[in-house]
């Protein structure tokens, strides 16, 4: 089985993140890049499926040169090889353009299963997996809390606020996963050493047969006009419980008409 995992490098969420004033794009330069949290679960699921059914796991990431670090980390978890889609013209791409480039790369690389995280922590749109499924005309099996591959069929347990649904489609298919699906492994020392020698292919827009006019910030279909930092919250009243903490909290709630 040929499994491709779409991995996005995102700014670390442990620190305050922002946009770049001027072009209003995500500030990727001044914050450390890490693998999008949910994509680690996608990698783990791919490795598990490959272990159970045989096959190869390829990491596919679209991003600036810096994303190479995250690709290495994904390889050190145990993936076999990687494809890095990188081109200056892609900078600032929105979900529509990202899905175009990822779909083109998936077509070129070939896949039985394409596994995604269900959402990225920077854009938080959750659009890309459904968009890629639409572009490739393959089953969309998203928001999976469980994935089962049997022969040429994939079945997932889809978990949403509405409840649980069992959804089936045939390979090739797009799958996205949630954070309850597994426990991502840590790279081992051996894994880290081995990752250094694993092949990473770089693809440009031209390699994918795409025009610069269909991607990137200048051509984004969704456009940020401006942004503002949330006004800081004014300092509140903090009291120490002297046996009256509950009453004082009730007093505050009453004053604000919550009780």
């Amino acid at each position, binding site marked *: 089985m040929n499994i491709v995992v779409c991995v996005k490098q995102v700014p670390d*969420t442990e620190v305050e993140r922002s946009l770049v004033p001027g072009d209003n794009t995500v500030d990727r330069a001044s914050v450390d890049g890490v693998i999008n949290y949910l994509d680690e679960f996608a990698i783990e699921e791919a490795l598990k499926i490959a272990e159970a059914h045989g096959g190869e796991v390829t990491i596919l990431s679209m991003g600036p040169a810096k994303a190479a670090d995250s690709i290495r980390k994904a390889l050190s978890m145990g993936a076999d090889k990687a494809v890095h889609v990188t081109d200056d013209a892609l900078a600032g791409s929105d979900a529509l353009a990202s899905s175009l480039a990822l779909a083109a790369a998936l077509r070129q690389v070939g896949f039985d299963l394409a596994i995604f995280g269900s959402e990225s922590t920077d854009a*938080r749109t959750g659009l890309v997996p459904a968009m890629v499924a639409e572009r490739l005309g393959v089953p969309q099996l998203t928001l999976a809390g469980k994935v089962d591959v049997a022969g040429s069929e994939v079945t997932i347990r889809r978990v949403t606020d509405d409840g*649980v649904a069992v*959804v089936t489609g045939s390979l090739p298919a797009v799958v996205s996963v949630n954070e309850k699906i597994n426990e991502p492994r840590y790279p081992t020392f051996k894994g880290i050493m081995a990752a250094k020698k694993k092949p990473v292919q770089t693809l440009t827009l031209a390699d994918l047969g795409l025009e610069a006019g269909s991607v990137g910030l200048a051509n984004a279909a969704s456009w940020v006009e*401006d942004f503002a930092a*949330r006004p800081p919250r004014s300092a509140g009243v903090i009291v120490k419980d002297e046996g009256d903490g509950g*009453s004082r909290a009730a007093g505050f*709630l*009453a004053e604000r008409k919550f009780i």
Partner: protein
Amino acid sequence: MAEVLVLAEHDSAGEVKKVTGELLTAARRLGEPSVVWTGPGAEAAKPRLAEYGAVKVYAADSADFGSYLVAPAAELLAQLVGEKSPAAVLVAGTTEGKEVAGRLAVKTGSGVLTDAVDVTPGDGGPVAQQPNFGGSITVRSIVRKGTPIIALRPGGVSAEPQAGPAEVEAVAFSATDAAKAARITERSPAEKGGRPDLTEAQVVVSGGRGTGSADGFGIIEQLADSLGAAVGASRAVVDAGWYPHQFQVGQTGKTVSPQLYVAVGISGAIQHRAGMQTSKTIVAINKDAEAPIFEIADFGVVGDLFKVVPQLLDEIAKHKGT
């Protein structure tokens, strides 16, 4: 006035969800709202849709929406976008609503704005306000290509009634084979307890690791019930198995923005704050005066939650008694 398509959110029993009223309220600012209804039940829903100013209701009574995932709804919307050339398409910013939006965007070559908490008309089309990075910034954005598709976060815009005709018009629709690739073979709807929905609640009471155990967490439910609130939990609580995952608030859980958020035994890690820091009023109870949650609290009590909360419950009961 141009039409604005609103994809109605309803459960499998045909009950119209609250967010649909919010979508219609937002759509009225942009043009004439036409509801798009998937599956049976449009006639029964008519009064509710009329209450929020629906002018038309395009009813596509097909079983395909229940049998196949997401793609049929996107196909129906694309068909209607082609026929009606609407000024915008509004969907609920739920996981499923966003997926429909994504597929529709690809089909129509349009931009999508997700997680909008407000939308207003502008010179270049609708302008959406989107909180980003866990609410630390707010972005104003527009769509520059195709038909603007906007996914509104439930609770972002408040639903205001305004009577409309909600004229039901049947639409012939059957999904293509391409839209039938993901088959739904089983469904178990989420248990709806007596409490309000976490993302729609006016008041949320959340508990953290400080509650100590699944039993200890019971005090959070008690406080929530006394305030008519939804219950939330920190990731530490969910990871420990004290409370189910769907109640997790934060970066990898729900984003909430209630009138009142009460954080009990929660330290206030950046990933937790990402899901609640846009709450109007924040109250924190924590025994550690250095806990970061106090930095964003409007009112905080430094103390043992097992002493403070019972007293608070008594006081609330007294208030109710008077």
